[in-house]
């Protein structure tokens, strides 16, 4: 077990190092850096100023030096300075994290609260009209672009209340807080709920076909006991994996949803930084996302072993 954990940790470091190299190189093969953009916007400026600015930002150094400088700083908790705001990247990123984390957390709660019961109902009532309706709804959940769902919600809010929810960092009432976070979270979580439902359904169906379920029925257990006591517990394992992976991958939906609802979280910040070629922000944010994904995968694997005593890491 310990050997397995150590091996996984080592592989995680290799993966993260690989990502850092790829992101760094990708961002620097772009023709035109921030200095070009700034100067193009300002019209004609003295070329000497341009050289000075590039030197100040370290852009005149070889790419390997720039990479080493970044990694060295990362290990010391120094993420560099944002090109746009000229503030430390850490100060720009940190305050935005809780907003996105709250949205992601709420979206996960929604997806489990809606997806698991819907999946169980669909499996228990397999082949009925209700099952068909739920399956089509879940497929449509996987098909609706989250940003369009967001726009539709905005449209409905204009129709119903004559106004659009505007993000307020310090909500005063609890209803405002719910509207602020709950509505965008629902727009993001709908897709994950659909995914969770599909996995719950197929996992439940597979379990319900097994011998021990027939045994439970044979000894006279009621439908409810069979479904919820015997089947559901074992059917939850793949669902937990999907929820874990979704937790890390929610960022994709959050990127567009934060843009639609104008929420100042990290996800929207990433898009803005990419538009501005604000390298220090982009590379650190992408690394942050990669760390979250890799750690979540690891945590899910460990949790899986903890929940299912049949799984033992011997490697």
């Amino acid at each position, binding site marked *: 077990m310990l050997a397995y954990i150590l091996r996984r940790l080592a592989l995680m470091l290799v993966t993260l190092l690989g990502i850092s190299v790829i992101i760094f190189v990708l*961002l620097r093969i772009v023709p035109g850096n921030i200095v070009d953009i700034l100067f193009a916007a300002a019209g004609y400026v003295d070329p000497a100023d341009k050289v000075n600015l590039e030197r100040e930002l370290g852009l005149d150094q070889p790419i390997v030096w720039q990479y080493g400088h970044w990694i060295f700083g990362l290990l010391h908790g120094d993420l560099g300075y944002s090109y746009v705001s000229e503030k430390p990247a850490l100060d720009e990123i940190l305050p935005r994290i809780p907003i996105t984390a709250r949205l992601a957390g709420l979206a996960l709660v929604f997806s489990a609260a809606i997806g698991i019961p819907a999946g169980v109902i669909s499996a228990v009532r397999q082949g009925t009209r209700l099952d068909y309706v739920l399956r089509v709804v879940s497929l449509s959940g996987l*098909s*609706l672009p989250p*940003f*369009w769902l967001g726009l539709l919600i905005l449209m409905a809010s204009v129709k119903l209340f004559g106004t659009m929810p505007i993000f307020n960092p310090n909500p005063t009432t609890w209803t405002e807080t719910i509207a602020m976070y709950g509505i965008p979270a629902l727009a993001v979580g709908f897709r994950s709920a659909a995914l969770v439902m599909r996995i719950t359904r197929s996992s439940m169906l597979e379990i319900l076909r097994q011998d021990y379920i027939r045994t439970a029925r044979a000894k006279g257990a009621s439908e409810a006991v069979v479904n919820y006591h015997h089947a559901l517990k074992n059917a939850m394992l793949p669902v937990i994996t999907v929820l874990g992976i979704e937790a890390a991958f929610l960022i994709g939906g959050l990127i*567009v949803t934060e*843009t639609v609802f104008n929420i100042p979280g990290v996800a929207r910040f990433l898009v803005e930084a990419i538009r501005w070629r604000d390298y220090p922000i982009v590379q650190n944010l992408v690394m942050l996302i990669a760390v979250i994904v890799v750690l979540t995968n690891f945590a899910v694997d460990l949790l899986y072993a903890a929940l299912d005593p049949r799984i033992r890491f011997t490697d």
Partner: protein
Amino acid sequence: MDAINYDTELRRAGAYSTHGWRRFLFLAQRNLLGTAGLLIMVMFVLAAGLADVICRFDPLAVDAAHALAAPNALHWMGTDSFGRDVFSRIIHGARISLAVGIGSTALGAVIGVIIGLVSGYLSGWIDLLFQRIVDILQALPLLVLALVMTAALGPSLPNTIIAIAIPLIPSVARVIRANTLALRELSFVEAAQSIGMSEMRVALRHVLPNTLAPLIVLATAQLGSAILTEASLSFLGLGIPEPYPSWGRMLSESAAEYVRTAPWLVIFPGIAISLAVFGTNLLGDALRDILDPRQRG
């Protein structure tokens, strides 16, 4: 009354046809949702192919006199802020969407198959290296990697295809590698090797065709997410550049401000994206049930 002869009944329904039209009809009758998906996809392909015939307006023609017109008999889905016909833009947008969707799925599949086949067949340090690359690509969500790729490559149609294809590689490579590893141990592969076939020939002629079913299932699922990702990238202004009519970009132009004043600019492109992805998802589910019954849910 005669006893029911199940064999004749099944034969009449076409259950024993292994190929051709009868087989297709048999499967289509048993997968109504999949047939619906196929019909939706055929509709989009026809719209893309016949866009010039279907549309009465040039999707790029600006007509300031009729800007922001609500849907009417002439402009079925209204016009945008430049007076361009929304219906024509959506029909022509099917070309962009399908080009990016099919292009990136195919590109991702080809690279993924090569990596998976080489990795699973040769094993050793090449396998180890490829597995690490796959790990790295898989540690970033699809949209994040595609965003960084488009930022690096610049916005254009071919670059958007590449940017979406790269994140699709890992899952293809994994599926093909796992299948190759399993197939390599089977006796027909051993037989092929023992009669002196070259490794390359065994891999291409005997292993690859047997991985096709899971590949088709996976590629159909990826087609939907590729279309969705293109829409998201264009919505964020980093995908297909102007003046191409991309569904995602139509929504980004019409976002927020037009939610109040011109809802048709928000509703119709969104329906087009959702319907296209819905079609691929329905078709993908049906193909999975037919080609890979073990995964049936």
